[in-house]
Every structure is written in structure tokens, then in C-alpha cells.
């Protein structure tokens, strides 16, 4: 779960990480009031879950009230790479002497948090990592031992920060690590981390990704979800507890188990088709979950045929068949369905489908056969539509 910049900064502040003062606003009037309160000059920053705001005109320095109003008007509602700006963050302008970069990522390969630090902040860090890898200091931290003072010194000294800020930079990194662990983040990134003219060290930006599986322990964070940033189908699937990813094609896919669904997408693609989505109905899916899933898949109007690929383990094929029959009753789909059922209670499931003789539902014995059939039907249905 990704946080907006200002949500990340508020999270940082709870852990004692210095951030400039600011206020969020979703209307021009609120933005101007916030700017008046914070004082001028101030910065009007678009709050979107995508990089490159600055280049897109989403970050502006306002010298006075008139400028603040103008910029808030320009930025609110702006489209940045497909993301609509619903909120701005009004922030006190900072006096920047140096721009550094700091981040902590949950490194799956190393099975440890990876702390990265560079004095080349304020720019595209991936370019820095590629062009001058020695400028990006990388240290893994043992999860049980935790971040030690020496880690902070190493990062600061090896990156070559100014000697007078080695301590405050180390202290900030230590708090960033505390925040990373305490909030169960998958990523915390500060770019730029600035040194001001007064030699204060501050986080001028904040990028935070939280672990969705841990949100039950962090009710405050769970409330931060920005539904307006999700795709319509994805939002609908999320509300119904389904694992759904929207894709570009026209064949709706439902399977049980992430690996099998991914494999199904591949096999459909190999057969010449184009998947419209990834939908994992999960283990032990009950009939009502299947109904919800069909609703989500068909809410995408591009879908011209649907493939059910089930290999039952925990999932019982008879439950899937019941769900499909119920879905036909509720949703009354107009596109063809191809169904492949194997595994737990597959005989009973196939029998239920045969007895129901749903319109335009084809059963297939193998995954490969089912994929080929759905591609064929989608092409035909597309031609007909």
C-alpha cells in the first residue's frame, strides 16, 4: 500500500524524523488558507502516487497568496501520467544547502532491510546507481540486531557527507529505520534529504510503501488507503476481497492460486489470446466469492470471453460450479465461458454444470484445450459484436 507524500511525512514525524511543516488541502480555498497559515514563500505540491511531479508542473514555489491561489487552482485536478491530483500539500519553503538521498527497502533476496544512502540526492536515483554506483552506499541490516550507530556512521562517511552533519544524518537514518520496522514498511525513501543553510537535516520528500498484510496492527495507517488512485475494477475487487489485476486484453481469466492463474495467462497468450485480467479466486473459494469474481470480470466492458481454470486442492470444484451457476442467474452474462475443472470434487462439479446447461458455457478437459477454446470464442464473439 503506497502513501502520498504528505501521509509519509506525517508518518515520519511520528518517529521523530524532521520534516518541513505543512498542511494538506483538497480545495483551492483550503490550500490558500493553509498557505496563509504556513506563511510565504511556500511550496504547493501535487499529491499523486507517481514520480515526475516536478517536470509535470505539479510542484510550485508560491511567493505570495496570489501565487498560492494560482498554483493550487492549476494543480488540483491536474492529470499527471494518468493520475488525477485530488490533494495538494502546502509546505514551508526550505533553504537547501545540500540534497542527499536515503532509502530502506525490504530486500527479499538478501532477507534483510537494505539501507541506501547517497550525497547525490534530488535526482533520479536509478540513474545515479547506474552511472556512479560507488556514490550509492548500500548496507544490509540484520533484522534481529537492528540499526546500530555504526551503520549510520558508515553510510554517512562512505557517501562523503559534510563532516558537521555526520551525526544528524546518522540519527535521521536510525529513526528512518525505526519507522520502517515499527510501521512495517516495504519501502521508505527520502529524496531529497536536505541539509539547510542552518545545517539542519530534514526529509523534504517521503515515499512510503506499507505491507498490506500488517495493516491490522496499524489501524491509523489502514485508514490512509487512497481508493481514488485505484482502477475502478481493482477497487471493486479489493472491496470484495479478491486478488485482481487489470490487464489490457479481452479474455477474462479466473483461476485458483496465483501461480496457476499466471500460468493460465501465459498459456492463453501463447494460444494467441490477450488476457483482460489476473483474478485469483484463492484457496477454498465458496460460491458467493465466485459470483463476486464474475461481477468484477464482466464489469470490464472489453471482456469478450471468460476462462475458468480450476485445479481444486482446498478449493472444491462443486463449489466453483455452484458459484458459476449462481453467477449466471445474477449477472446473466452475454459473453461465452470456457470452464476447466480438475481436482477435489471435479466429477461432482462437472455434473452440476452439465445438469444446469448454462447458455454459452463450454467445458474442457485440459488447461491447454481450455485456453485454445477461449481464444477461439473471444475472436468469434469479437467479430460478432
Amino acid at each position: 500500500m503506497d502513501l502520498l507524500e504528505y501521509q509519509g511525512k506525517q508518518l515520519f514525524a511520528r518517529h521523530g524524523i524532521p520534516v518541513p511543516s505543512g498542511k494538506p488541502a483538497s480545495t483551492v480555498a483550503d490550500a490558500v488558507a493553509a498557505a496563509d497559515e504556513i506563511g510565504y514563500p511556500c511550496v504547493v505540491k501535487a499529491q499523486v502516487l507517481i514520480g515526475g511531479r516536478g517536470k509535470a508542473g505539479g510542484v510550485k514555489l508560491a511567493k505570495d497568496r496570489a501565487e498560492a491561489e494560482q498554483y493550487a487552482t492549476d494543480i488540483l485536478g491536474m492529470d499527471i501520467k494518468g493520475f488525477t491530483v485530488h490533494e495538494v500539500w502546502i509546505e514551508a519553503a526550505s533553504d537547501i544547502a545540500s540534497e542527499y538521498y536515503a532509502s530502506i527497502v525490504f530486500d527479499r533476496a538478501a532477507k534483510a532491510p537494505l539501507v541506501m544512502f547517497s550525497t547525490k540526492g534530488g535526482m533520479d536515483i536509478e540513474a545515479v546507481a547506474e552511472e556512479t554506483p560507488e556514490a550509492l552506499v548500500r548496507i544490509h541490516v540484520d533484522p534481529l540486531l537492528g540499526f546500530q550507530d555504526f551503520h549510520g556512521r558508515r553510510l554517512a562517511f562512505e557517501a562523503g557527507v559534510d563532516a558537521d552533519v555526520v551525526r544528524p544524518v546518522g540519527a535521521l537514518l536510525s529513526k528512518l529505520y525505526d519507522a520502517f520496522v515499527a510501521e512495517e514498511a516495504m519501502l521508505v525513501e527520502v529524496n531529497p534529504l536536505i541539509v539547510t543553510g542552518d545545517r539542519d537535516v530534514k526529509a523534504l520528500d517521503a515515499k512510503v510503501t506499507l505491507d498490506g498484510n500488517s495493516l491490522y496492527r496499524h489501524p491509523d495507517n489502514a485508514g490512509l488507503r487512497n481508493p481514488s488512485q485505484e482502477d475502478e475494477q481493482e477497487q471493486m475487487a479489493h472491496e470484495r476481497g479478491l486478488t485482481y489485476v487489470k490487464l489490457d486484453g479481452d479474455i477474462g481469466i479466473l483461476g485458483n492460486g496465483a501461480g496457476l492463474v499466471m500460468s493460465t495467462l501465459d498459456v492463453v497468450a501463447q494460444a494467441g489470446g490477450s488476457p483482460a485480467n489476473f483474478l485469483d479466486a484463492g484457496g477454498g473459494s465458496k460460491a458467493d466469492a465466485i459470483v463476486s469474481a464474475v461481477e468484477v470480470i464482466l464489469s470490464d466492458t472489453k471482456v469478450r470471453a471468460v476462462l475458468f481454470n480450476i485445479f481444486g486442492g482446498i478449493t472444491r470444484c462443486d463449489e466453483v460450479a455452484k458459484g458459476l451457476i449462481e453467477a449466471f442467474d445474477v449477472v446473466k452474462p452475454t459473453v461465452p465461458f470456457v470452464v476447466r475443472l480438475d481436482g477435489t470434487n471435479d466429477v461432482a462439479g462437472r455434473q452440476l454444470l452439465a445438469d444446469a446447461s448454462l447458455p454459452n458455457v463450454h467445458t474442457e478437459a485440459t488447461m491447454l484445450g481450455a485456453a485454445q477454446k477461449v481464444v477461439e470464442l473471444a475472436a468469434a464473439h469479437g467479430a460478432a459484436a
Partner: protein
Amino acid sequence: MSVLVGKDTRLVVTGLTGREGTFHALNNRNYGTDVVAGVTPGKRGQDVEGIPVFDTVHAAVAETGANTAMIFVPPRFAADSILEALDAGIELVVAITEGIPAHDELRVYTQLKRTPGARLVGPNCPGILSPGKANVGIIPASFFKEGNVGVVSRSGTLTYQIGNELAQRGFGNSSIVGIGGDPVPGSSFIDIIELFEQDPQTELIVMSGEIGGSAEEEAAEYIAANVTKPVVGYIAGFTAPPGKTMGHAGAIVSGTAGTAKAKAEALEAKGVRVGRTPTETAEIAMEILSA
């Protein structure tokens, strides 16, 4: 022979008295697994169809000599349950639970590596089936028979798919090991391939990977350096778009690293043949075994 679970397995199930725990523990027992105990705090003295229930894993181990634990508790209790099993001296912990917080998994993994002689498979995995001997987890055992193919996979249902394609061609399995699709699996491909390499029953190894992480690439290096038996690979997720989590928390592609294409190429560069579909994977295996 088989790997990890077999006739010596003495299984304790944490979360036994829950609906899912009861269902699968009894399934496992019906298959022939020696299910010796369950753990549910506060339910000491009860039993589930004759399986005695204890308050703690330590008590279960002391009373029944359990050496393997299956974790069936909800995600918020799972890390503690795994740590309890490790502390109680359990040799093999099989964690079925899905949705464990990533930082919990990190702590568990780090503690696991400090616990000599202990092994964790999962979390978020279907478990381990050694056909004809023991089933620990939720793999539908009736689709598989005993044989000489070892299967290791990050995905549950995909494992069934591949195992089933092999079975349809007449091949059985030594063991089928689901290592799970989470960010921090307790056992890697390498850990399990090492066991298959040592297992006399196993003559061919099928490794089923997916996008995300670098476990398949690491396995490719390991196979080239250490494995004498033939290995056939499969990778799911060629059509997955970058930056999206495809169900499994581990299945996310960042940039060009972790793509299905990169993984398949890494394996092929080390001489591992990779099927492009489950069907093709089974066909390659059949071809090798029949040669």
C-alpha cells in the same frame, strides 16, 4: 525414500481445533501421516477424533515426540506459532498460513537461521506430499502416485497442474514440495533441490518458479555447480506486467530483474531445459526419463 516427510514423520498441528486445521489434519491422517498431536492454547485435554490437544508445542513434543509441525493458525498468530515450534525443538515446520506480515517473516527467517537443525517450509505454501508415505499440508494427494520425479514449486495449484500432467503420462513422484510464494520463504529452491539430489528415489527434478525475486536465478547457479540429476524448469508469469503484485506477495517484477524471460534464460544458460507451458514441461520430463 522421499524428502522431508515420510514414515518417520510425527506431526503436531497448531490450530488443530480450527475448522481448516481439523479438516486437513484428518485428511493427512487418513492418507497415512502419523498425526500425533494438536496445539490450541487453553484446550489441553481435549482431542480431535483421537488426536490429543495440548496448550503449547513444548508440551506436545514432550508428550508425543512430535518432530514435524504444521502451522494452521491465522496470520496474526502464525509467526509466534512458528517461533514456538522452533523453540520446542521441532525439526521441520510446515507453514500453510497465507498473509503473514512480511516483517514477521523476516524475524522468523532470521531466527530460523540461528536454530541449528531446524527447517521451515512455507509460509503460504501447500505443504509437502510424499506419495504413498505421508502428506503434510493441503495438496490433494489422490492425484499423485509414488514415483521418481521430485517436484519443487513456489505455487500450490500450479504444482498440482504439473504433477497431474506427469501422472497422466504415467510418472509418479518421490516428493512434492511447495515452498510458497511469499517474500521470505523458509526454504529456497536450492534447499529442496539439494535434498532431491541426495534422495535415491528421485531421478529427475522439476522446479516450478514464477516471476519476482531471484530465487530461480540462484537455483540455476546452484544446479550447474552441484546437481548431477536432470532438472526441468517451468516459469509462470511471461505475460505479467511490471510493477504489479500478481497474487503471491513475492510475484512482482521490478524493471527487467525478476521477469519470467530472464529467469528462463538464466536456467537455460546453465543447461536446464525450461518448458513454456505445464504441458510442455511434463513432456520434457517424460522425454528425459524415457531416454
